[in-house]
């Protein structure tokens, strides 16, 4: 999370400082030990995922474990056509719509909150700790509370009302924290300069703050989308009668024991990678365009 802190910081302005450790001479033994650890970590991180991607391309004889039995797209077709795997297509649809809505709301609210938190104000600590609380509270408990609340108020729980709110209680703290990190690099003198030159508050936001922070705002959007798209615990009690994709996957884990499950994994991961790639790509593009303007 403050993840992107470091990460964005570097994307925004690659630090000129070099890696600390001995910048010349032979590498110490610790380098090799740690490099091995790192390689093992990355292997453990990606290895299992790669296994299921491979196994999802088996043919009709396929099972849940190696060895690979044939190669085909059978299980992908199966995934979207078979009734027993549930309403995968519908839940896909809902999850993506929901994620888009959550992303937009998260970006707008996080940005405004980031602006607000630049100055101290009475009660800012309360809001801040409310946010931290929302981040660390057990998702299932929050989800249940929201579900009961809707029930008590006589409202119907559905993915675009209660689940939307429940997901925002999860994506917003992340979004605001990332915004904090992004804004800590913003120079307040830019605001004053804009004011000095006659810009209104809104002109300052649109012409200065938003474009300067654009890469960070993309990062917030990435968080909003992926956290919503994968959200499970908070949606479980709040999604109502129609499932989101993670809920669908969850029910599949309980009753589907065919490589369809893996096929679904492959498909969602592809979507995640598209979103990640698009986000990182647009950050790089923003930087590049600035770089090119600079060379012209």
């Amino acid at each position, binding site marked *: 999370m403050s*993840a992107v802190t470091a990460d964005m910081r570097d994307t925004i302005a690659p630090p000129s400082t070099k890696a600390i450790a001995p910048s010349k001479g032979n590498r110490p033994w610790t380098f090799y030990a740690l490099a091995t650890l790192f390689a093992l970590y*990355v292997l453990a991180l990606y290895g*299992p995922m790669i296994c299921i991607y491979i196994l999802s391309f088996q043919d009709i004889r396929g099972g849940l474990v*190696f060895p690979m039995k044939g190669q085909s797209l059978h299980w992908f077709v199966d995934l979207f056509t078979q009734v027993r795997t549930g309403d995968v297509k519908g839940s896909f649809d809902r999850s993506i719509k929901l994620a888009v809505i959550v992303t937009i709301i998260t970006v707008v609210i996080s940005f405004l909150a980031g602006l607000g938190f630049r100055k101290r*104000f009475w009660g800012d600590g309360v809001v801040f700790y409310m946010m931290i609380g929302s981040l660390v509270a*057990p998702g299932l408990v*929050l989800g249940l509370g929201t579900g009961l609340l809707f029930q008590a108020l006589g409202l119907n729980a559905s993915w675009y009302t209660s689940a939307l709110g429940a997901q925002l*209680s999860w994506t917003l703290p992340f979004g605001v924290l990332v915004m904090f990190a992004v804004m800590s690099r913003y120079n307040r003198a830019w605001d004053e300069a804009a004011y000095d030159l006659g810009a209104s508050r809104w002109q300052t936001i649109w012409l200065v703050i938003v474009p300067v922070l654009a890469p960070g705002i993309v990062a917030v959007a990435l968080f909003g989308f992926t956290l919503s798209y994968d959200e499970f615990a908070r949606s479980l009690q709040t999604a109502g009668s129609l499932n989101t994709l993670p809920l669908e996957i969850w029910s599949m*884990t309980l009753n589907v024991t065919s490589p369809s499950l893996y096929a679904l994994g492959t498909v969602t*991961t592809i979507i995640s990678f598209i979103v990640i790639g698009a986000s990182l790509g647009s950050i790089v593009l923003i930087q590049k365009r600035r770089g090119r303007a600079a060379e012209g």
Partner: protein
Amino acid sequence: MQPSASPAQTSPRANLAGWLYVSPLVLVLVPFFVAPILVVLAASFFATDGFGGLTPGFTLASYVEILHSALTLKLYLATIKFTVLTWVFTLIIGFFVAYFLVFHVRNQLLAIGLFLLCTVPFWTSNIIRMISWIPLLGKEGLINQALLALGVIRQPLEVLLFSDLAVVIAYVHQLTIFMIVPIFNSMARIDKKLIEAAIDAGASRFDIMRLIVVPMSKSGIALGTIFVVSIVMGDFFVVKVMSGGGSASVVSAFYEDVGVLQYPNAAASAVLLTLVLVAIVSLILRTVDIRREITS
């Protein structure tokens, strides 16, 4: 994000502006975080008719029942066991991975690339990443196949999947990133000149780590700990799937209670868990100013 004045000195106008900016955030957090928590709190004092109906009232029966139950102790012990194991492994792996990236990778661009490599899975589905252990850890999984082929074992190991071991593996797999990122962040902020000065003063590699790196990464470790502890303690999904139903945690028991409509019991146990969590988190927060940590 550098507060210029203490809140007590802010003008009414600054207070109003601050609240205007954070009001959308508050308008989401109040109905979807504060209210649900209060609902759960209220429900914990209600009586139940045993069929999902709640009788408003005030009774401590649910708490008495929970606190007297031997099961509660067992659940908490199990949860604490998972939490501590996961914390230890994520901390060790996270610390050394971050240390490797910051202090051993000489090429800055490579370090950022490797860092991104670690963060990408964070943006993909947790459920899928968990399922992906099946082809590896299963009874006929790759590890058993390999061990059998090597002749290390004669019978496939059953403890690999659907066991406490599998639960811890899945946690570590998902949560190490929450350690790496904040620790990486605080390590990256250590002034490299400090290390050079220490080397000049004759400090050994170990001294540097003990006397400079560890103390200066403390805030990152604290932040990572908050994430890992609160996620593991609030999780039910990993326990349920990866233990194959063999183990339970506080929240998975909560989930079962909800499933059989035992709302007051579930709520009481949730309140208890939240209190424990708040205690742990605030204990950690005493050692680190999280707000400054994120924003500076």
